[in-house]
């Protein structure tokens, strides 16, 4: 078995440099690589391009990197919950490329799976398709979208083992599996690193081959953005 375990978040992020392109899993604040983000803040690398569906909130998630002006460009589908983000975007400090959510997922998957580009109907006839090749198949129009190229992918999983195998929980899965193996180096952090052989080979969401480094995160806040409840009875 090939071992992917590293000794904590410091070793996990070795090789990170300013101006790199990063993929970060998560939807809203759910399933985000909290420990890797904290380490990016500590390392104070900047000029980063971040591929992530959302941009966190002011004081959590990618918002922490934005506060410290470490991000040069965001590639996201929705960035609506972050005042500092808004300020930097409107002032022109931050470059933002908004792309459809399904296109974001599939450009990651294309990188993971060795496809150079995909044809998707999303965004045809809109400004998202401007400057891009479009093409008709069976009477429907599609836009050619290219696979992402990233240096690091930061993944948050629920459980994992030393072989790099990952299991996700609930909707914290989201983009995480699609980003595994989609960058030069995939770093997975897990809530629980379990002994090899504990995970059922039949029930592994991401085989270890897609992961280069794995560690158990020191702690997880797992903040809830919209706490919606109903009354009992």
């Amino acid at each position, binding site marked *: 078995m090939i071992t992917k375990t590293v000794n904590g978040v410091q070793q996990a992020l070795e090789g990170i440099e300013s101006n790199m392109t990063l993929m970060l899993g998560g939807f809203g604040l759910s399933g985000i690589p909290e420990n890797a983000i904290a380490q990016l803040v500590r390392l104070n690398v900047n000029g980063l391009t971040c591929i992530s569906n959302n941009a966190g909130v002011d004081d959590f998630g990618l918002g922490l990197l934005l506060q410290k002006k470490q991000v040069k460009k965001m590639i996201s589908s*929705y960035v609506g919950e972050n005042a500092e983000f808004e300020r930097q975007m409107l002032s022109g400090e931050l470059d933002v490329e908004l792309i*459809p959510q399904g296109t974001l997922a599939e450009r990651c998957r294309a990188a993971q799976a060795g496809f150079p580009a995909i044809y998707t109907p999303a965004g045809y006839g809109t400004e998202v398709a401007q400057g891009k090749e479009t093409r008709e198949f069976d009477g429907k129009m599609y836009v050619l979208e290219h696979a992402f190229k990233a240096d690091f992918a930061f993944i948050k999983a629920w459980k994992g083992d030393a072989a790099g195998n990952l299991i996700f929980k609930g*909707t914290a899965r989201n983009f995480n599996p699609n980003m595994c193996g989609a960058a030069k180096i995939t770093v997975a952090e897990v809530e629980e690193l379990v002994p090899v052989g504990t995970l059922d080979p039949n029930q592994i969401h991401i085989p270890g081959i897609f992961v280069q480094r794995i560690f158990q995160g020191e702690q997880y806040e797992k903040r809830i953005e919209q706490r919606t409840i109903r009354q009992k009875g």
Partner: protein
Amino acid sequence: MALDKNQIAQRIAREVKDGYYVNLGIGIPTLVANYVQENINVEFQSENGVLGMGPFPFEGEEDADVINAGKQTITTLPGASFFDSATSFSMIRGKHVDLTILGAMEVAQNGDIANWKIPGKMVKGMGGAMDLVASAENIIVAMMHTNRAGASKLLKKCSLPLTGVACVKKIVTNLAVLEVTEKGFKLLERAPGVSIEEIKAATEGSLEIDGDIDIPEMKF
């Protein structure tokens, strides 16, 4: 009398048929779930990666790892499943989701929709809306007939940047139910007590009316 948001949702719920997989957008569409007939089987998909969404959790049972696309804590029903984002949009792009209900800023009489960007204002992004409108076989828009300034949102041509082209099939507003046809917005139903003249006045796009007298009031 014009409908309120809950009544719009209630009217749209009648479009949700037995056996449908449905994706609900944020806002009025979310309310539709409250009014679906109890004797039919429907499953709600949320594009962040869940099929078989249930109601909000009871207090103390919220789970940060179980949310919907509006980032709200939710529950799941028996038979539910979780999946990754690529699989989620495979369901959408592959036309496995039967009905998409979403809000809009503008709809054009050819079915174009604009609902993600107002030039000059802070842009939050399209999220999954562009994938949904580009792929869904059946798209219903839930919105007010006019904007806050009183201007029609049913237009000859959208003025805002588009989310998708020629994709909207039906619109339910506070005033009317309309179908997008080759001739424009075909008036199907009026809100109770709302006159055809009122609807005409609130519709900038071409309004197609088959025999004025026959336009029925909405049923719930």
